[in-house]
């Protein structure tokens, strides 16, 4: 709200305040990983003695960014902070970017997400293209080399380009999964040939017709060791040298977030050792593989908001020993009102692996039906629309191994509220 009010009084408040940030602004955008990446950047910059202004998780439209700046400003318009780190809604980039005049724009990935709100990923990509055309050529674009569409967009920037990616075949899945989006070359329309697929349409690709191929990442992960829910470990290779890093963030998808943050911080001249320390000490953003104790029993919250993200979360939890899951599906605007994406998630992975699945949320019944088709034993499924009761039922069904809680975005917010009322989690995530 303060953002909306301030913009009502002075529509250019964002640009006036952003200009006062000594080290400029970094924008992070993309379908998945915005919150984790921008928070990791802020965390590392903090270790490097740069104080950052950042927006609240999810408050990533123009108003949320204005609010973050206003809240960190004095009445005389001085901003308490050296650098802005803002996650920006992927469809909003062209609107927000000009007022922030960023030093760096980070493009994480493009997956199908909330089609009813954004239209198609090609439309989002074309918005990015027009935003990048307006970007100062002296600014850097940090982009995901493993995503064909993102690297096609990022590669067009005439200024500093910093591609990041995974260089480790052991992270590969072998084949493209159903949630893959960008399978056809953006220039000639024939299928890319992938030598490795990491997840979704992320991988090492090449168009055999026009030769368009994955750019060599200048910041790369090699020698990856996946510790499941305990996190990831890899060699972080950069133009400044290489260092072994260990992150508590789980899953191959988080390697991209770590690489994006490392590349951005290097560009802001943070030493590599500081970056490695930051990666090791960063705790997950709210609901992103966050661990809690419920009635003395361990639980892990894993935000799952689109097919690619959901598949990665499922793959990660199947490496651990839990037997019980709570899946909460809402269809509010922030979740995407169209829940047909549930059929693009490979829930078949769960077949025979879980003893009890409690489904909840506004579309609990849809989730139950999806699990029926995935081959999950109907006897193992409990439908409980009310989230509080669903949580009780799920905790009651655990056997001491961790309970996996997989909510969509607004279901996550509701769960946080329930957990806060129980005194289990604090409201820290609102900062």
């Amino acid at each position: 709200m303060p953002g909306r009010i301030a913009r009502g009084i002075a529509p250019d408040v964002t640009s006036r305040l952003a200009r006062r940030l000594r080290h400029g602004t970094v924008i992070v955008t993309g379908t998945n990983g915005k919150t984790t990446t921008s928070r990791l950047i802020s965390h590392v910059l903090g270790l490097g003695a740069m104080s950052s202004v950042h927006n609240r998780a999810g408050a990533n439209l123009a108003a949320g960014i204005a609010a973050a700046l206003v809240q960190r400003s004095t009445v005389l318009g001085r901003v308490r902070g050296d650098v802005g780190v803002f996650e920006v809604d992927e469809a909003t980039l062209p609107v927000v970017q000009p007022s922030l005049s960023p030093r760096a724009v980070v493009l994480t990935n493009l997956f199908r997400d909330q089609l009813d709100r954004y239209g198609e990923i090609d439309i989002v990509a074309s918005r990015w293209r027009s935003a990048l055309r307006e970007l100062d050529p002296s600014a850097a674009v940090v982009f995901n080399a493993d995503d064909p569409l993102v690297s096609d967009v990022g590669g067009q920037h005439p200024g500093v380009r910093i591609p990041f990616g995974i260089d480790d075949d052991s992270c590969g899945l072998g084949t493209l999964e159903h949630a893959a989006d960008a399978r056809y070359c953006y220039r000639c329309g024939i299928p890319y040939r992938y030598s490795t697929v990491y997840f979704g349409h992320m991988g090492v690709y090449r168009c055999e017709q026009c030769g368009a191929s994955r750019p060599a990442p200048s910041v790369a992960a090699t020698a990856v060791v996946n510790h499941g829910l305990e996190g990831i470990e890899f060699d972080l290779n950069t133009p400044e040298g290489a260092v072994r890093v260990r992150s508590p963030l789980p899953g191959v998808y988080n390697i991209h977030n770590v690489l994006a943050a490392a590349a951005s911080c290097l560009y802001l001249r943070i030493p590599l050792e500081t970056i490695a320390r930051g990666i090791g000490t960063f705790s997950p953003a709210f609901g992103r593989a966050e661990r809690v104790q419920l009635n003395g029993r361990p639980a892990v919250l894993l935000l799952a908001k689109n097919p690619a993200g959901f598949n990665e979360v499922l793959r990660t939890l199947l490496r651990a020993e839990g037997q019980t899951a709570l899946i909460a599906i809402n269809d509010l605007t922030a979740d995407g009102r169209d829940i047909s994406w549930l059929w693009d998630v490979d829930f078949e992975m769960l077949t025979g692996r879980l003893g009890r699945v409690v489904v909840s949320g506004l579309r609990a019944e849809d989730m139950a039906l999806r699990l029926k088709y995935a081959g999950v034993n109907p006897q193992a499924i409990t439908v409980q629309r009310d989230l509080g009761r669903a949580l009780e039922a799920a905790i009651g069904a655990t056997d001491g191994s961790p309970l996996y809680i997989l909510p969509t975005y607004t279901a996550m917010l509701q769960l946080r509220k329930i957990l806060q009322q129980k005194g289990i989690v604090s409201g820290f995530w609102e900062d």
Partner: protein
Amino acid sequence: MIADMDLRIAHLYPDLLNLYGDRGNLMTLAGRARWRGIDVRIDELRLGDPLRPGAHDLYFIGGGEDRQQKLAADDLRGVKAEALQQAAAEGAVVLAVCGGYQLLGHYYRPSEGDDLKGLGLLDLTTEHPGPRAPRLIGNIVIRSPLLGGATLVGFENHGGRTRLGAGARPLGDVVSGFGNNGTDRTEGAVAGHVYGTYLHGPLLPKNPRFADHLITSALRRRHGDVALAVLDDRVEDVAHKAAVARAGA
């Protein structure tokens, strides 16, 4: 003799037109047939693959993004048109959703640029009223005379407005939502065994009676009239009712 029966399904452009959980439709057709002991084969027909009339009992076409839809439209017209028309004339079932539905009509007229010529399997045309016109998005409930007035539930998301000619009947009347064009309260189109609709969600999992209607129609071509065994649809029925309530219908 259900045990000796088989259902042959062709899924057109599974990698291009798969925008709205469309594989759920295939999973439903295959699942509901197999649960009754009917053997199911699904062949995927991609760009350049020939379509052999007589090889399949049911053809499914889903929806895609503009770029993918253009690729599919060119291939559909250039490689598969005649054979698909022949198959439909010989009694094969064709089910098309969203973008695929538009491709079965005479043409799709985008807000800018040239018309995308369709197959003309359904007597309808689709026009996009311009970049400023809102997309028709939301939960939808229709009543279908095909199912004795029972409801079909789904989600729609389309910019194009479709109008039916005299040669096609609507699949149903809109109870809640927009339907073909947001004005005449019709949704979808049917001509013979060719079905088109904007309902995804996906369409078939929560509408099991319609899925069975399609399976029965598809089997008729080679196996005559088949009485399908009754299945336990409690999970489906609960999800259907929940979707009706969610649509405010």
